[in-house]
């Protein structure tokens, strides 16, 4: 049975929103979370606070964009945090060596892409398990970041470079937000509308069938891991710009946050599923949680407990609703 044609545009729009909500309960969970936080503290719904939330999402968000591609192919990338630290370290080194900051940024991005490509080569050409390859890469990149820095923080005293983390567009929108939003838009576009995006889903959905349809699985995988490498390097530049320094310990444990965000957003680790919009909500849920608990000055020991519980509940809403639909 098909629904009748809507009478007018506003009706249409509200229906669209309703459909979005009901098809995406995680968004619903997110809105409820925000609502509750808004009730608990009037500082929550302020422009300033949301600017904070978005800026604080930027590192995980940018990395999660890359992770979405990899997870849709059915893979995983554990090396993101280490690659972030390593690339940020390299760029800090170049800045210290008085390299032109723009050049340094470009070089760093290319460098991150190459690390991702190497991961992808091992995984697609040598058919090694992504978990192992990226676990090894995680260890290696972190080690190299340590070796390169001697375990020390490298301060970055370059305003152009630090603009990437601390600057503003039109004096109000922080650059990290801009970069994150652009990344989400481009990735969303690619996944939804392009041939590469469709192939990414196909590879994760059914490798054999994708192969029979003339899709070069190897290439798709290599590109997916390269994107993740590139995004890690981007996040590295943003983070080190924000801190005005590169730390060898940057972004430890980021992999779990990023994967978590992607999976909360509805992707499945067995591949073929997931959306950029879902990832975006997943990232925001995490940031809003941290932010809200800071605003409420929740005892730090309990913060972890609440964080776990709320993630559980948010995903539970999603799961129960899908269940209900299928009955």
């Amino acid at each position, binding site marked *: 049975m098909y629904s009748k044609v809507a009478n007018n545009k506003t009706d249409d729009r509200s229906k669209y929103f309703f459909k979005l909500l009901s098809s995406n309960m995680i968004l619903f969970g997110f809105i409820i979370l925000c609502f509750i936080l808004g009730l608990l503290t009037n500082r929550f719904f302020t422009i300033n606070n949301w600017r904070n939330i978005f800026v604080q999402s930027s590192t995980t968000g940018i990395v999660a964009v890359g992770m979405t591609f990899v997870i849709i192919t059915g893979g995983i990338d554990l090396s993101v945090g280490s690659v972030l630290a390593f690339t940020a370290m390299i760029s800090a080194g170049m800045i210290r060596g008085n390299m032109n900051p723009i050049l340094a940024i470009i070089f760093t991005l290319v460098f991150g892409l190459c690390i991702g490509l190497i991961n992808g080569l091992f995984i697609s050409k040598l058919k090694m398990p992504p978990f192992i390859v990226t676990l090894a890469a995680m260890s290696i990149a972190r080690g190299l970041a340590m070796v390169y820095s001697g375990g020390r923080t490298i301060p970055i005293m370059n305003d152009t470079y630090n603009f990437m983390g601390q600057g503003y567009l039109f004096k109000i929108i922080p650059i990290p937000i801009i970069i994150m939003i652009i990344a989400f838009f481009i990735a969303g576009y690619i996944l939804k509308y392009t041939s590469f995006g469709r192939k990414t889903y196909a590879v994760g959905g059914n490798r054999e*069938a994708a192969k029979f349809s003339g899709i070069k699985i190897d290439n798709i995988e290599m590109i997916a891991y390269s994107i993740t490498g590139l995004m890690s390097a981007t996040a590295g530049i943003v983070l080190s710009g924000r801190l005005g320094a590169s730390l060898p310990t940057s972004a430890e444990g980021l992999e779990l946050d990023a994967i978590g965000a992607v999976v909360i957003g509805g992707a499945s680790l067995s591949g073929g599923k997931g959306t950029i919009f879902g990832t975006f909500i997943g990232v925001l849920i995490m940031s809003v949680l941290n932010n809200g608990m800071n605003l409420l000055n929740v005892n730090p020991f309990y913060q972890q407990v609440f964080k776990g519980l709320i993630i559980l509940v948010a995903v539970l809403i999603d799961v129960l609703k899908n269940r209900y639909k299928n009955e």
Partner: protein
Amino acid sequence: MKILLNMKNISKSFSKINVLNNVNLKIEEGKVLGLLGENGAGKSTLMKILSGVYKKDEGIIIFEDKEINPQNPKEVQTLGISIIYQELNLIDNMSVAENIYLGRWPLNVYKKINYKCLYENTEKLLKENNLNLNSKDIVGNLSVGKKQMVEIAKAISFNSKIILMDEPTSALSNDESEKLFNIIESLKEKGVGIVFISHKMEEIYRICDKVKVLRDGKDMGEKEINNVTEKELIKMMVGRDIEDRFPKKNNEIGETILEVKNLTSKKVKNISFNVRQGEVFGIAGLMGAGRTETMRAIFGIDKIFSGEVYLKGKKISIKNPEIAIKNGIGFVPEDRKKEGLILDFSVLQNSVLAILNKIKNIFGYINHKEEIRISNNIIENLEVKTNSNKQIIKYLSGGNQQKVIIGKWLEIKPDILILDDPTRGIDVGTKAQIYSLINNITRKGKSVILISSELPEVVNMCDRVMVMHEGELMKVLNKDEISQERIMYYAIGKKGAI
């Protein structure tokens, strides 16, 4: 005659779409009930309701004079009803024996699995039913046909009172089907009631006592098989007459387009043949003859160890399917679930998967209008039963899934289309449709390579037939040499002329 099971007024809808509407079904002791209907008529759904996979919306099921309400497969199994599902359900990493007795392995006093006993039981079961399987083989390494035999053995092993068989023969060759019929006959003697679903009319007449026909989820009634002609049955199913099961061909055979010389791969040795323009080139053989493997090698999926492939006289090296597609070769694979479909994709997304590169612009943007056009085209031309092109393909009936796959390959407009058992699980009406499609292709001077296990299909459709046996080419038969006897003669490995 004792009625074992009675399903009354069964109705079922999936997300508001009605799939079964007041259907009745009686299973009698020692009788085989044929269940007929077009693709998507609701046969499998009815069986799955009985086996506890789906829950019925309305109706009652009476088994041995008691109403039952199946909730899960286990419950139904314990009642004494077993089922062979339309799609294979096996654990690839386990042995044949472990699969047959999945979850019911014999245990010793320490709860340890008694493997000796397991293998003995399996050997016994296989021998009793004359099934040609090795109990210790790993199932993942078997061909589809052999896997199907494992499913059959499994269904029998329950010693059930009722066995439901949803297209058990679609992956079997005549030989193996005949074995299954022998098994069914001995089951009948034991008083087992059987439901048998098939799209092959010969089989229905060969083995069934009664037939029940479904059309669009509606009950079209039950007939004694002796009181009804094939034509009448088809009319009950389709609602109209089908003139010719094998439509007339009028193709002109031209130059050689594909030439294969001494091809050797993992599973096949020294295969040489050529395919000409406008020709239907058949490949026949028993299960495991290596027909699929030959085509996999040509299509760039398996590695070619030695030998050459010439296309239009030019030597080409096809390293992967993409190159094959670029060279105008299409391939409808034999295992649709594993190799043909992205189950979580919609009909539309599956339709354009092989043609993505042609409908995108330089930025990779997929032309959405074109997508819609192509998928609607397929749905219309092949009469795919689906509520829209946005439907997720895993919810289509098996036959309709197959139509989408064929449609997807027709859309790349191939010079050579390889069809590996394309009519498996396809209803009579659609089969005729697919045959006309094949004729359409050849009429335009394009070629078709048709792998088939159905001899009538091979005999009627092919211009030449290559017969294979255990990875080797036995004989290429010309049009005037093609006969069922000759094909079988070479297929079982005999040499020389007859």
